[in-house]
């Protein structure tokens, strides 16, 4: 057994664990060969997870000249509500922020040296491949300041950093967000590129406290580093994970299971080490210094600590301080006369208690205040709350609590814009827990309030940086501070939304709502509740779609509160959302009513953005109601008012770009009215605009509309490509509605390419997902399935699907096609010709009354085929010729080509 020298953290000596180090070494060797690896280190608090990784990194540094370590730690106090915290810390480490070295104190000097040598390159890579991640993740708001102008200037890309900083400010002004999938892709691309320069160990500590966004990013990286020189290590406490989160399964659990399924056994479990490993740890620790401690002592020590790393280290330290262990004349540690096993602490908490109680009263007080701030704390905050001079506090923390007592570490500066703070951390979170748990409820409340107020004043003007912390402190303070807690929940939610950390945003808003019940009744409370419900509706809308029950609930609550407040201008957003809800539910009359209200109110307020949005909304509703003249009037008015330079950011506030929607629905109207080429132009314009705006939801919507248009035109190869692209966009962005829609179109393509069973399965799955989003616009999807049934000869099933859609839907636009397909299905069994013909004639009248020339043509073709089948080909040729005569463009498209053939054939038979 090799004894190893101590590091400054806890435990202060790293011994044993040869097997685990060997395992990590094997994984790193594979990563070095360009086969990125993942490892999960698990164990209870104090079992030595962090120490193991830290020591492993030191070993790697001895063998490999280029390897670097980046690390981030999840926070027990605010981790769940602070999106991407560990990954922001790791990124800051890689881009030269020395304050982020604190988690790895043992490795800091060598690692910091290595990081300094690559910082220019790492920032350059960040700017090149992950500009949006840079804008969102690097704290402080001024990127150029963060990275250092000198370095940037030297490297020749100061201008680009300046531009990034400006873009970030712009994005903040516009309250914009980027999609989580892009954050993931850019972060992975950044690490991949960087690891080509220097092999990377990325360590995420304490995953049991991670926010959902960080867990998803961890999973994404784990699945995408297979060809990079990266070893990704996560650590967590399985007992905490087993307890779940908020009454549900802990989100880390399925991720760990999925990674194990994918990679095999990737866990190093420090709790399930064999007994001899624990005993070896005790032996190795004692043998780090000369001693003459016998078997009896070693056995007793192991019996007391079970080989628990922190407990063993702390107990040995306590025994030395008590005189239970003394040096003999030769300088060897030996049992002292004061050794009394019965008087020694039986649990690790007991050892911690003894250490704290040996400190003087002022140091204890400083630590108590620090424990309220959290595992990591700013010494300036502690000083102000404890009413101690800042310099004095810094001195006592660095000289006594850090160097002498090794209870805290760090002490490096961190900047948030103009704010500079010196950050420390407890060397083990059990120290912080012990101190915090021993405060009375009243002490905690007052201290939380004090910490909150100090943080608030330090971060004046940029409280969003610490909004999650402020919310927590004011919530714990209670009483009159609660309203502040609610306001900071709102602010934290907005920050999370901008990072596309929607789960976290939802959690903040729901917590804020729960807190409002404790606030006094009155206008201020109503205003807060209105803001919370509106923000919640917007977040849920992005997650689940416009028609989801949860979205309905949130906006209904917001609407009621808006009325109580006298309908403030902000209520316009709620009105718009409710109209969208009714539209997507297929309740057209309601949707129209609400849409008109939006337009009226927007005109009253002179709000051009909402006037434009109201026009596109009314235009869309009119399409579904088959009122094409009105639809074109509103859609074209929107396009007229739209200016991408002025309104390009609207999508980020309203959920989709109004200009894109207007072009997309205009393309549909144009096709229905018999202008297939113009329809294609409008559809392509929608895609081009969506790309220009760069809003993923709008992009998915535009491409999906284009795919649908290709299906109308029966241009299956183009349809397949566009549907595939739409599906990818929808999956990346997590847009359930577009994912379902793309699945239906892809299934339809398969059906028309001959893979009917496979196509029907895809359509069926798409229909289920579509319905589950609450969307009631089912007519088009139902006809896709009915057409597949017709081709497969599944008459009854096809009829049932169609009849269900006709029974439910208020969508007049697609009714001619629903009737036509019903007639075609009826004809699959003999003896239904008359019924089918009646239905087709009904469909023909309807299509003509709507001015839906494309649908009229389809119906006329079905009638012509029926007549031909009955041996009377001339009967319906007049209707077909009439329908065909309306078309002056797109004559080579599917239906028109077939109509021409049919007309030629019909005339030929008539002539014959």
């Amino acid at each position: 057994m090799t004894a190893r020298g101590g590091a400054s953290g806890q435990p202060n000596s790293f011994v044993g664990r040869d097997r685990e180090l060997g395992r990590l070494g094997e994984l790193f060797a594979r990563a070095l060969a360009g086969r990125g690896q993942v490892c999960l280190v698990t164990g209870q608090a104090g079992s030595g997870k962090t120490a193991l990784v830290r020591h492993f990194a030191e070993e790697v540094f001895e063998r490999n000249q280029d390897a670097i370590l980046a690390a981030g730690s999840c926070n027990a106090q605010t981790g769940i509500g602070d999106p991407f915290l560990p990954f922001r810390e790791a990124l800051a480490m890689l881009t030269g922020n020395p304050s982020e070295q604190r988690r790895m104190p043992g490795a800091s000097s060598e690692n910091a040296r290595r990081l300094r040598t690559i910082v220019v390159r790492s920032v350059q890579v960040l700017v090149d491949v992950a500009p949006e991640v840079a804008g969102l993740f690097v704290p402080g708001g001024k990127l150029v300041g963060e990275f250092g102008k000198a370095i940037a200037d030297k490297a020749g890309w100061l201008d680009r950093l300046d531009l990034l900083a400006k873009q970030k400010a712009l994005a903040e002004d516009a309250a914009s967000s980027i999609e989580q999938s892009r954050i993931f892709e850019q972060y992975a691309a950044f690490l991949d590129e960087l690891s080509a320069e220097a092999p990377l160990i990325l360590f995420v500590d304490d995953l049991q406290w991670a926010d959902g966004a960080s867990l998803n990013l961890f999973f994404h990286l784990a699945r995408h580093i297979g060809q990079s020189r990266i070893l990704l290590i996560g650590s967590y406490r399985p007992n905490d994970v087993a307890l779940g989160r908020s009454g549900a399964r802990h989100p880390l659990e399925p991720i760990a299971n999925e990674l194990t399924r994918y990679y095999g056994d990737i866990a190093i479990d420090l709790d399930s080490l064999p007994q001899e490993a624990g005993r070896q740890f005790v032996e190795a620790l004692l043998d780090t210094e000369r001693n003459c401690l016998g078997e009896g002592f070693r056995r007793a020590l192991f019996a007391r600590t079970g080989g628990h790393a922190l407990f063993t280290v702390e107990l040995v330290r306590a025994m030395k301080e008590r005189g239970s262990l003394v040096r003999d004349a030769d300088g060897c540690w030996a049992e002292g006369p004061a050794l009394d096993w019965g008087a020694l602490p039986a649990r690790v908490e007991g050892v911690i208690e003894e250490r704290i109680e040996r400190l003087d009263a002022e140091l204890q007080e400083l630590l108590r205040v620090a424990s309220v701030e959290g595992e990591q704390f700013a010494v300036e905050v502690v000083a102000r709350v404890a009413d101690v001079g800042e310099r004095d506090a810094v001195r006592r923390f660095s000289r006594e609590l850090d160097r002498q007592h090794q209870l805290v570490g760090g002490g490096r500066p961190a900047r948030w814009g103009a704010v500079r703070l010196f950050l420390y951390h407890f060397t083990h979170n059990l120290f912080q827990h012990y101190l915090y748990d021993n405060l009375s409820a009243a002490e905690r409340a007052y201290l939380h309030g004090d910490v909150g107020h100090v943080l608030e004043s330090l971060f004046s003007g940029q409280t969003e940086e610490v909004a999650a912390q402020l919310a927590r402190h004011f919530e714990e303070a209670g009483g009159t501070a609660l309203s502040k807690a609610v306001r900071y929940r709102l602010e934290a939610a907005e920050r999370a939304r901008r990072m596309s950390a929607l789960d976290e945003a939802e959690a903040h808003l729901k917590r804020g709502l729960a807190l409002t019940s404790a606030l006094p009744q009155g206008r201020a409370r109503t205003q807060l509740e209105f803001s919370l419900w509106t923000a919640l509706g917007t977040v849920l809308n992005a997650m689940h779609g416009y028609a989801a029950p949860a979205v309905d609930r949130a906006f209904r609550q917001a609407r009621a509160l808006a009325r109580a407040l006298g309908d403030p201008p902000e209520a316009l957003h709620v009105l718009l959302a409710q109209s969208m809800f009714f539209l997507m539910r297929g309740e057209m009359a309601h949707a129209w009513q609400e849409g008109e209200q939006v337009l009226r109110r927007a005109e009253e307020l002179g709000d051009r953005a909402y006037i434009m949005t109201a026009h596109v909304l009314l235009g869309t509703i009119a399409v579904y109601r088959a009122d094409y003249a009105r639809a074109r009037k509103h859609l074209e008015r929107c396009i007229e008012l739209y200016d991408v330079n002025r309104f390009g950011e609207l999508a980020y506030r309203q959920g989709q770009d109004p200009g894109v929607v207007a072009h997309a629905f205009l393309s549909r109207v144009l096709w229905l009215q018999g202008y297939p080429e113009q329809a294609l132009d409008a559809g392509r314009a929608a895609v081009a605009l969506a790309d220009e705006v760069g809003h993923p939801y709008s992009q998915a919507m535009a491409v999906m509309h284009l795919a649908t248009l290709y299906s109308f035109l029966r241009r299956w190869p183009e349809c397949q490509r566009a549907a595939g692209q739409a599906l990818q966009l929808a999956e990346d962005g997590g847009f359930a509605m577009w994912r379902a829609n793309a699945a239906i179109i892809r299934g339809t393509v398969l059906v028309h390419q001959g893979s009917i069973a496979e196509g029907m399965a895809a359509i069926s799955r798409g229909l289920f997902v579509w319905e589950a989003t609450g969307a009631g616009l089912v007519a088009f999807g139902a006809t896709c399935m009915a057409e597949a049934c017709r081709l497969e000869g599944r008459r009854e099933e096809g009829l049932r699907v169609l009849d269900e859609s006709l029974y439910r839907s208020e969508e007049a636009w697609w009714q001619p096609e629903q009737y036509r397909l019903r007639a075609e299905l009826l004809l699959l069994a003999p003896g239904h010709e008359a019924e089918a013909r009646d239905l087709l004639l009904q469909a023909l009248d309807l299509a003509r009354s709507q001015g839906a020339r494309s649908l009229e043509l389809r119906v006329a073709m079905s009638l012509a085929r029926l007549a031909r089948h009955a041996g009377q080909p001339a009967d319906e040729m007049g209707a077909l010729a009439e329908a065909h005569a309306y078309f002056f463009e797109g004559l080579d498209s599917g239906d028109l080509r077939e109509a021409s053939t049919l007309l030629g054939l019909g005339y030929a038979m008539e002539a014959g």
Partner: protein
Amino acid sequence: MSVPGTEVRVHARKERGQTCILDIKGGLSAFAEDELMEAYNRECATGTRNVILNFAGLEYMSSSGIGLLVTLLIRAQRRQQRLLAVGLTDHYREIFEITRLDEAISLHEEEADALSVLSAEIGEWIR
């Protein structure tokens, strides 16, 4: 292929004061709307906090049936009610999971399981 029966029968019953159970037998499609909503309005719309959908007798559910459940969910949520489902076969349980409807309607094996969960969570709304 024969189309499974689309006839549906919905029986509503009260359980432990604030809980209502809807026993759904037969096929759940768009055509079940009247039957389902009438049963719900009759027994569950008022004085009810939790609605348990018992699918033990379910023979068939179309995608429109899922749409109908979402409609019911919207109505229930407007009344501050919670929906639970019991007795789903593996096939339909999977559909609930694929469509993520299980996130809004909690799934339980048996009626007794759902009732015991409710006893433990009574009074809770925003979770």
